[in-house]
């Protein structure tokens, strides 16, 4: 875990997270992220061979609710706060032909 993050890594990560960075931002963020990752060197040095990972404080169990219809969200109320509602749907720009 001693490898540090490079500007190439940050460029890739920003693209995955759908964020656009200026060249100046790229330099600043890379330095800051490297600093935070360097702080984690202390745990990289630990022997954790027989330690189980803990992803959450409460063990995951299937939770079932009573099979009774509930009150759904009001569609007009939901759509009223959408950036571009149209006929009860979310309008988005062209998708086919998208680079993604």
């Amino acid at each position, binding site marked *: 875990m001693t490898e540090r993050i490079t500007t190439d890594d940050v460029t890739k990560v920003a693209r995955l997270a759908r964020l656009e960075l200026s060249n100046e931002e790229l330099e600043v963020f890379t330095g800051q992220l490297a600093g935070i990752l360097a702080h984690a060197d202390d745990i990289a040095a630990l022997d954790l061979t027989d330690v189980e990972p803990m992803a959450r404080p409460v063990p995951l169990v299937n939770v079932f609710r009573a099979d009774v219809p509930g009150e759904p969200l009001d569609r007009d109320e939901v759509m009223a706060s959408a*950036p571009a509602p149209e006929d009860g749907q979310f309008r988005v720009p062209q998708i086919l032909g998208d680079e993604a």
Partner: protein
Amino acid sequence: MTAREIANAVRAGERSAVEILDEHLRRIAEREPEIHAFNLVTEDHARATAAAVDAAVAAGQDPGPLAGVPVAIKDNLCTRGIPTTCSSKILDGWRPPYDATVVTRLAAAGAVAVGKTNLDEFAMGSSTENSAFGPTRNPHDTTRVPGGSSGGSAAAVAAGFTPISLGSDTGGSIRQPAALCGVVGVKPTYGLVSRFGLIAFGSSLDQVGPFATTVADAALVCEVIGGHDAGDSTSLPQAFPAVSEHLDDGVSGLRVGIVTEMMGEGIAPEVAAQVRAAADALAAAGATVEEVSVPAVTYGLSSYYLVAPAEASSNLARYDGVRFGQRVEAATTGEMMTATRTAGFGDEVKRRIMLGTFVLSAGYYDAFYGTALKVRTLIRRDFDAAYEKFDVLLSPTSPTTAFAFGDKTADPLAMYLNDVCTIPTNLAGHAAMSVPFGVGADGLPIGVQILAPALGEVPMFRAAAVLEAAAGGAK
């Protein structure tokens, strides 16, 4: 007046909820321009709620244990029809179509919500300086930060705008601002308070809790908002422990440990001295006090700043300009999403999203995220060992008193170090609270943290009540 005093007077018909509300709105009008605790004050909505409380009392009904009590709500808790922003431009203008469970429960108990409080964007920060709508100022000294991320909720209570408020705590976001603003703040055991309607940051760490001026008020709010909720799959199948009925129990025989690792390097000597003074006060009241080593807590910061950003990067993927909030138009949907997120998120949020994306990416997952999760196990193990010998633990809440604006904004790691004593509790899923205890050389409040194991709220509140009395006596 405390929340309990207000509720008693309103239930007895001695005071009207509208009159109580007006008093608090006057205080807000006087000082809010200087403090900026609120993103939004919902005066008309509050007035209608208060009038309904008064009507219920007049009709011989009991509005509930928080009858007529004004309350401020952190702006990352959904309020139906009322803008909820997380202090982020990306959610500006969004009106949730439902209430968070804690908001519903406060209303059902007769509380009067007066507005939405400022926070570090998406609860990421320790000073409220990361808000897209400008920082909140500490009511004790407006050149200082109120702490964060729930800085607005802490400041609202400290300034007397409301006797109680709600915050959320992912790594210290209730306890640290409570300490810096000189009020009581509680981070309950993970799963005791519903997260339904709390806008997610780190889902395995987030927990809602109260701010109050007294330990008894904080206990009451916990009992009102806590308990099982079918809307949250991590909600525990039980009520909040009945802490109110144990506030007068004292601490005779209680076993209290001072966490050695949280008393040394990086902690201001005056803060450590107050923790020792608090321990002395507990000992004088009949508790046994010893130092205890909890070695793995020193790895808390490293683990947290991998786990929390990892969870945040996933949770914040939903802000894509499609369903809610702001959109920056572009030629294609992919470009629209990138333009929206780039314009909508502030630097700290971007930093954590990128960090989280990185530590979850192929080739780094095991080394970073996997390691951090194993360290979580170590921390819980070391806490468990300590709690075999002790009922509660003591530490500073924050390493220093409130710092000046701009002091720690240049270096993210310097800001993160504010939470070194609070983070381990979230990683373990345990309970902890901050109680004001003395002041520093600058005259600003110091908070002492009481830590307890999962569901250890009763001994935690017993110790808090004794510290509150001792702090009052010392003044």
